């Protein structure tokens, strides 16, 4: 049996192998969405598809979903031989990561002629054909090509049918196949490193390591659950939706040290909007906040999901059925963490986070002045929600992954100018701790041609809610040529036109009247709030010129400090 120290070292090594896959993916990828926006995840699994480790950068949902996908694929190939050099692929929403752009690529790792592990990557590729729209769809078939579980490579040789099929059915085949092949390359690195690990420790397989990691994690989480008060709690949220609002209802209770989350009563799936979430994404999004609250220090692995159960009626918006449209399922699932925190507020108030301002994906597709096709994504975020002891962060990804494509990259890849990108003053949800402020981004089409613009905003009607007496954040909006728009079909964005995104702020935590003087002054100095607003919200009587003086003092003190250093 492995001693705890060796186990920890092996575990960390597995994580760093995933990290290495992650890094090589960025370095070898072709597209902005993988290379710059980091919309992918790398997972390492044992020989039957249990998730063991993920790259630190990987979004947590992918790491819950991908092992499930791997197990479904392995079930399908139960009676067929799996060879060294095989690579499986699928983007089916009900088997994979629940919308078509997410491709799952999974490779076996062979050691001494036996499969000892699987490595997998989920990546959001640049295009899968289908309509350019996002939200308006009446079924999944409109959303692009679907690749069922198949061998993308067989014994190291690419499957010509799948390759050609993907190439013929997406707008930017170079980027998509480039990314997919890059991923297969990173798997080779991981395979090599896993074999090295096994031979370093004279192991024949990862079975013991896998069992120990997962069992330890499960036991730890169950112990944490046993400490919680045995109460049934309920929480519900009303959300924007697209053409029709929807409601999420959650009942949470503990049974045999398992946490049960029951979504019965939530809205039904919608056939006119592509916002439906299939089971896997709802479950994995639910797991993450629970993990953060109860086992934040344990690296993600499949042992942590064992005590977390989800009940969701088939055909509901959190467990939609084939072939419902699913492309923009983030519109639904981003509300799951605030929902879970809402339910936990009553039993674990110190650990919850208020709702965040979300994500406003924006997508530019068109032709350059020299008529070359481009497809560029950006995933800007709103402010985060506040917690028991800290303000919400400035715009940052939550509960999603993804970093923001830099303005420079956008401007070099398409004829779009990022005119401004700024924090919105007075936007935070007030509270003892305030939410993170929202941001405003203005884009201008500086090319000669019309660009097809797809924007998928949220929280235009219902803002991010505060907890424990904290206020809600501001509502989001999209402004095209000085007019607010509410219809988010693909927009024909003409040369010279401007579009502004108001990405909402996060909700506050705790009653604003308890906010400390020091925090308020700091906000004023940093320009988070205007004086009038502070006086109104926090019931203060500051004078503008005092604050101006403080700002100057603050700057001079900073300068003085610098000179002394």
């Amino acid at each position, binding site marked *: 049996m492995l001693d705890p120290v060796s186990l920890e070292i092996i575990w960390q090594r597995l994580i760093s192998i995933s990290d290495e896959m992650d890094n090589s993916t960025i370095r070898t990828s072709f597209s902005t969405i993988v290379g710059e926006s980091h919309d992918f995840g790398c997972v390492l699994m044992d020989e039957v598809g249990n998730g063991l480790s993920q790259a630190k950068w990987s979004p947590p949902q992918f790491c819950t979903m991908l092992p499930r996908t791997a197990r479904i694929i392995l079930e399908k190939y139960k009676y067929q031989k799996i060879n060294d050099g095989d690579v499986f692929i699928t983007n*089916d929403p009900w088997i994979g990561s629940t919308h078509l752009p997410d491709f799952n690529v999974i490779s076996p790792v062979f050691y001494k002629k036996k499969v000892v592990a699987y490595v997998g990557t989920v990546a959001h590729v640049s*295009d899968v*054909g*289908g*309509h*350019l729209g996002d939200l308006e769809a*009446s*079924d999944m*078939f*409109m959303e*692009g*090509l*679907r*690749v*069922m579980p*198949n061998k993308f490579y067989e014994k190291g040789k690419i*499957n010509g*049918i*799948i390759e*050609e*099929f993907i*190439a*013929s*059915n*997406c*707008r930017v085949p170079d980027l998509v196949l480039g990314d997919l092949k890059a991923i297969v390359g990173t798997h080779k690195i991981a395979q090599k490193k896993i074999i090295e690990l096994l031979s370093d420790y004279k192991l024949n397989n990862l079975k013991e390591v896998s069992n120990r990691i997962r069992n330890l994690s499960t036991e730890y989480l169950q112990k944490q659950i046993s400490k919680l008060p045995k109460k049934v709690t309920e929480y519900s949220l009303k959300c924007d939706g697209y053409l029709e609002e929807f409601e999420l209802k959650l009942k949470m209770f503990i049974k045999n040290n398992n946490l049960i989350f029951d979504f019965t009563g939530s809205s039904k799936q919608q056939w006119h909007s592509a916002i439906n979430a299939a089971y896997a994404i709802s479950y994995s999004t639910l797991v993450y906040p629970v993990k953060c609250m109860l086992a934040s220090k344990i690296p993600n692995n499949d042992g942590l999901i064992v005590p977390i159960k989800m009940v969701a009626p088939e055909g509901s918006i959190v467990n939609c059925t084939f*072939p419902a449209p699913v492309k923009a399922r983030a519109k639904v699932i981003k509300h799951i963490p605030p929902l879970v925190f809402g339910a936990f507020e009553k039993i674990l108030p110190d650990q919850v986070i208020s709702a965040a301002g979300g994500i406003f994906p924006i997508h530019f597709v068109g032709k350059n002045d020299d008529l070359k096709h481009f497809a560029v994504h950006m995933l800007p975020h709103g402010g985060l929600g506040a917690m028991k002891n800290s303000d919400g962060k400035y715009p940052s990804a939550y509960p999603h992954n993804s970093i923001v494509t830099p303005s420079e990259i956008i401007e070099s890849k398409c004829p779009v100018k990022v005119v401004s990108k700024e924090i919105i003053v007075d936007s935070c949800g007030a509270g003892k701790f305030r939410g993170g402020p929202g941001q405003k981004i203005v884009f201008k089409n500086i090319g000669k041609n019309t660009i*097809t613009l797809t924007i998928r905003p949220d929280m235009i009607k219902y803002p991010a809610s505060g907890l424990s007496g904290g206020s809600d954040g501001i509502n989001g909006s999209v402004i095209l040529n000085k007019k607010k728009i509410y219809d988010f079909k*693909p927009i*024909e964005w003409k040369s010279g036109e401007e579009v502004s995104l108001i990405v909402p702020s996060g909700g506050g935590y705790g009653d604003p009247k308890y906010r400390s003087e020091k925090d308020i002054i700091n906000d004023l100095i940093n320009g988070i709030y205007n004086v009038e607003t502070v006086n109104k919200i926090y019931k203060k009587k500051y004078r503008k010129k005092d604050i101006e003086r403080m700002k100057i003092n603050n700057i001079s003190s900073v300068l003085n400090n610098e000179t002394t250093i």
Partner: protein
Amino acid sequence: MNKYDQIDIEIQWQRLIAIMDEIDNATVKSSFSTIVGESRDFACILVDSQGRSLCQSSFSPPNFCVILPRTVKKVLEEIGVDNISEGDVLVTNDPWVGTGHLPDHVIMTPIFYKRKIVAFIGTVAHLSDVGGHNGDIEAEDVFTEGIRIPPSKLYNRYSENEELFNIINTNCRVPDLVLGDLRAIYGTHILGISRFKDFLNDYNLVNIEILSNAILDLSDNHMKRKIKELKNGTYDYNLAIDGYIEKLYLKVSININDSKIYIDYSGSSKQVENVAINCVYNTTYASSIYPFKCALASNIPNNEGLFKRIDVKVPLGCVLNTKFPSPVQARAKVTNNINQLLFGALTDVFKEFSQAGSGSIWPFSFSGTTKKHGKFSTHMLPHGGRGAMSVLDGLNPIAFPHNSTVTPIEIMETKAPIMIVEKKLIPDSCGAGKYRGGLGQSIIIRNIGNETIKARLRPDKIFCAPQGLNKGQNGKVGVVKHNQKVLTKFPIFDFKPSDIIDLKLPGGGGHGDPLKRSRKLIDDDFNKGYCTKKYIIKNYK
């Protein structure tokens, strides 16, 4: 047998046609969908080992016979003849390789005899669904319109290419219909192969090279003679057509020079953005050949020998030769007008064979899911009246220049929750002339179910009327009303319970001076109720 006499050729040629007819019938009998089984939107063609089309089934639309040789040649080039074995079946729906839009699947089976490819059987079939958006005319690009199958093997040595079947199965809404039709077509090709081998055995042939050359040469010689009879010269013509929202202009310049014809479409409108009415070269080429075939060789069965002498030039990027990946689904809105353009240019040259503009085809479909019908998708391809010729009235609603029969009311009503309230000829809708155009028709349909279903419609000639020729009057333009409201834009729309859609399809154009129409024919029109007194007084005095 090395020498063929006329009788041998005729008998063997007819037998080949009969084989294709048998395949055609088998397709109807074994197909799963209404568009193949009822609307007959498919064609069966025999192509020789060099990829030259030899014959087609009698029912097949003529344009596919022109296109298929181009497709076969391109597919062979992509896959490589050496990589093809007995029992392989090739497929593609690539618009630029095949027939110009994704639903048309081209299925090609090589016939091996004594280990050599002696011919190909080809079927072009419009299948029920290829995924993609539900719309029709409005699309950003071909990727929006569905799944594109590059030239691939549908069957590998008599066994299904599982991966490809899987891809098709998982990327269309009605896989039972689509795969059912594909498998049915494969079955008909197996039948065709066995008939073809019988044929070779009966005549002790090892291949059909001599026969093939004879058919093509005979046809070519006939065309050569016919073209020589035409008056040399350059003939120009312009035509405004509906397009979509904005009108388009087609321009042609035809040069008849001894035994060759050069058609040049330079100057026609550019390809359109975001509207799926662009034509690939293949369809333009085929649509250009057809009027010549009708006028110059109407009695000769279609084969490649008939169109070697016609050269079609279209600048790349023009609506008649669109670049990848522009949207192409509804290209018939443009190609349907090509005959009108050519007949217009050559009225005097073609003499009695020239034909006025026809009322066009209005593809129309319902889809949805209801308790009673399950998941359904039903097409109907109704037509307007046909254009008149200089010696003949235009026929009442009939397909031209398209193929396709009309899905019977009974089939429509059993497959979807609709009732066809009315289907009748529209009096006075014909263009007057010495010979009048065919009448248009009126179709009124109501949703009699409790569920909202989707309707998709692609009308034509609701702005630009079918043109009359030689002083003949234009036919009447079409009108579409949804619950009394006139529609001019045609994205897919909701057809709610009790909604009514009212289609008035255009009548054909007239030919010749109306004042020269015979008294007897005028009386006839009146007695049959085709024309009212008012119309007769106005047009024929």
